[in-house]
C-alpha cells in the first residue's frame, strides 16, 4: 500500500490521489491540514521500531510513501502546534522507515539556501549564472555594473520570491539591504526549461514567457505562457539524474535558462517540485510516472502501518 503525506490544500495532492485511484494502486492518506485526525504510535521491540498511524482508516503495511509536507497557512498557534507535532513525528518515522520515500525531507534541505545550491550545481559541472549574495549596497551596484546592467534579484532562502530584473528605480530600496541579504544574479534572458527527474527518467518542459520569471506571468498576470514537451542534450539530462541522486532524492525539478546564443545555465533544484503545474500545460504524464514508480518499488516487509 502507498501512503501519501501531504496537504489537501496543495495542488499536487488531489492530482496524485486521483491518479493513484485511476492506476488502481491501494493507498491511504495523511492530510496534514487536519492534524487533529491523526496519531502516530511508536513501538520498539528487539531493536526494531514500528510505527502505527491512526486516523487513515486503514491498518495496512506501507510499501512506499510520497511526502510533500503542508506549509503553515495560518497564524493560529494551536493549529500550528498540532501541525508541527504531527510533522515532527512523521519526520522521525521517515528517518527509520525501510520503504522508498519520494522525497525524504532530511534530504531536501539544499534549496533552503539558493547560493549554496548554485555552488553545488557548479561543482556538479553545470554552467551557473554569476551570483552575488550580499547585504552591502555598494557591492550590489558594483555587480550590476560588472554584469553590464543585466541583473535579476531574488530571495536567498526557499521562502517564495519571484525573480525581478534589477532596474535603476530599485536602487532606492538598497537602503534596506543592510537589514536583509539578497541574491543578485546575472540575467540570462531566454527560454526556461524545467527538467523533472524521477530516478532515472527525465521529463523536459520548455517554457516561453514575456516575464523574467514565468511563474509571475502564469500565476499572477494570467499570461498565457508557451509550455511544451522538449528535449535537452543527453549529457545534461545525465547530470540532472546524477545530481538528484547525489542529494538523496528520487524526484526533483531542476530549472534552466537558455540564452538565444545557446548558453544553458542551471538556476536551482527543487526537491518538492510542483509537477502538476507543468504537466497540466504540456500534457506530459509526470504524476502517472511517479505513481507507477511508487507502485512498482513497494517493499513487502514494512515497519510502518497506516
Amino acid at each position, binding site marked *: 500500500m502507498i501512503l501519501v503525506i501531504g496537504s489537501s490544500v496543495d495542488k499536487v495532492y488531489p492530482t496524485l490521489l486521483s491518479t493513484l485511484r485511476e492506476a488502481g494502486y491501494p493507498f491511504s492518506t495523511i492530510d496534514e491540514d487536519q492534524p487533529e485526525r491523526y496519531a502516530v504510535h511508536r513501538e520498539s521491540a528487539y531493536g526494531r521500531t514500528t510505527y502505527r498511524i491512526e486516523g487513515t482508516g486503514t491498518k495496512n503495511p506501507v510499501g512506499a510513501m510520497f511526502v510533500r509536507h503542508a506549509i503553515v497557512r495560518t*497564524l493560529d498557534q494551536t493549529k500550528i502546534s498540532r501541525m508541527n507535532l504531527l510533522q515532527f513525528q512523521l519526520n522521525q518515522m521517515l528517518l527509520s522507515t525501510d520503504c522508498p520515500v519520494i522525497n525524504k525531507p532530511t534530504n531536501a534541505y539544499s534549496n533552503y539556501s539558493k547560493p549554496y545550491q548554485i555552488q553545488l550545481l557548479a561543482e556538479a559541472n553545470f554552467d551557473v549564472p554569476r551570483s552575488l549574495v550580499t547585504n552591502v549596497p555598494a557591492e550590489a551596484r558594483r555587480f550590476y555594473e560588472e554584469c553590464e546592467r543585466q541583473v535579476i534579484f531574488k530571495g536567498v532562502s526557499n521562502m517564495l520570491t519571484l525573480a525581478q530584473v534589477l532596474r535603476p528605480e530599485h536602487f532606492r530600496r538598497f537602503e534596506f539591504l543592510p537589514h536583509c541579504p539578497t541574491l543578485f544574479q546575472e540575467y540570462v534572458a531566454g527560454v526556461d526549461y524545467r527538467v523533472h527527474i524521477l530516478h532515472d527518467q527525465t521529463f523536459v518542459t520548455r517554457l516561453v514567457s514575456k516575464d523574467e520569471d514565468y511563474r509571475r506571468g502564469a500565476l499572477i498576470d494570467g499570461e498565457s505562457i508557451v509550455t511544451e514537451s522538449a528535449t535537452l542534450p543527453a549529457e545534461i539530462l545525465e547530470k540532472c539524474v546524477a545530481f538528484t541522486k547525489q542529494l538523496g532524492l528520487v524526484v526533483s525539478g531542476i530549472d534552466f535558462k537558455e540564452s538565444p546564443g545557446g548558453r544553458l545555465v542551471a538556476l536551482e533544484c527543487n526537491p518538492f517540485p510542483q509537477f502538476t503545474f507543468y504537466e497540466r500545460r504540456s500534457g506530459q504524464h509526470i504524476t502517472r510516472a511517479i505513481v507507477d514508480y511508487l507502485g512498482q518499488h513497494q517493499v513487502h516487509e514494512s515497519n510502518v502501518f497506516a
Partner: protein
Amino acid sequence: MLLVFGSPDDRLTANVHRRLVDQGVSTIWLDEPEVFAETQLSVEINRTHRSGFLQCGSETIMLHAIDGVFFRLPRVWWPSSEFDFQDQLFVYHETAASWYSFLAGLRCPQVNRFGLGWWVHDVSYADQLRRSISTALGLGTPDSSSIPQLPIRNYPTPVRKTQNSRHVYVIGDYVVPRTIGDQDLAVRLNAQKETLAHWQQETGITFCRLDFEDTGVMVIHYVEPMPMLEDEPFDTVDKIESQLVQRLS
C-alpha cells in the same frame, strides 16, 4: 584570520579565544547579533570560483584570508521588531540562508560546520546525527523508544548523568573520556578513528559529546554537537580546549 562566533557568556568560547590570542593567532570574536545583524557580507560565486569578504566594524576580511572558524552560536537571534512579523520571518530565513552558504563554501577548518538540518531548526537533527554515527560505528540502529516524541528545540545540553550513562568528547581524531570510568570507551573509539573521521567529514561535526547507554549492549543515546562544559571536570575541559585550539591554529 580566525573567526570566533560565539556568545560572550559561553565559557568555552571565551577560553578558546583567549588561548588562540595567547598563541598569537589573529582572531575576530563576534557574538550572535553582531554576526547576523551587523556584519556586512558579500560572496560572489561563478562556475569556477568564489570570492568575497566580511566587514566587521572597520575590519575587512577577505574570504581567502579566513584560516578557520570556531562556531558556537546559540541561535536565539531574531530580526528587529521594527519589521512586521512576516518581514521578520523573511529576514530571519534570508539571513540564515546567506550565512549557511558563506560557511559552506569555506575550505578552512571549522568547528563545527553544522548541516542544514541544524540551520532550519529541524528537531530531528539530533536523531539524524545519532543514527548516522551509530550506523557508522557498527552499533546497529538504536531503539527509538528513548527519543522524545515532542518537538523540542535542540539547545546546547550539559551531561545528564545516569547509572548506565557513559560519555566521551570527540575533537577531530582525539577522544577525551569524560571521567576515568569512560577510558575504555575512548580506547574503543580511538580504534575506529578512520570511521569517525569519515562521519565528521559527512556531517561537519568535528567536536561533539557522545552519550552512551551501557546496559550490557552499548547504544548511542545522544550526540551533542554543542556541549556545555560548565560543570565538567577541570582536566577534561583543559584537554578539550587544548585540542580545539590545536585543531584551529
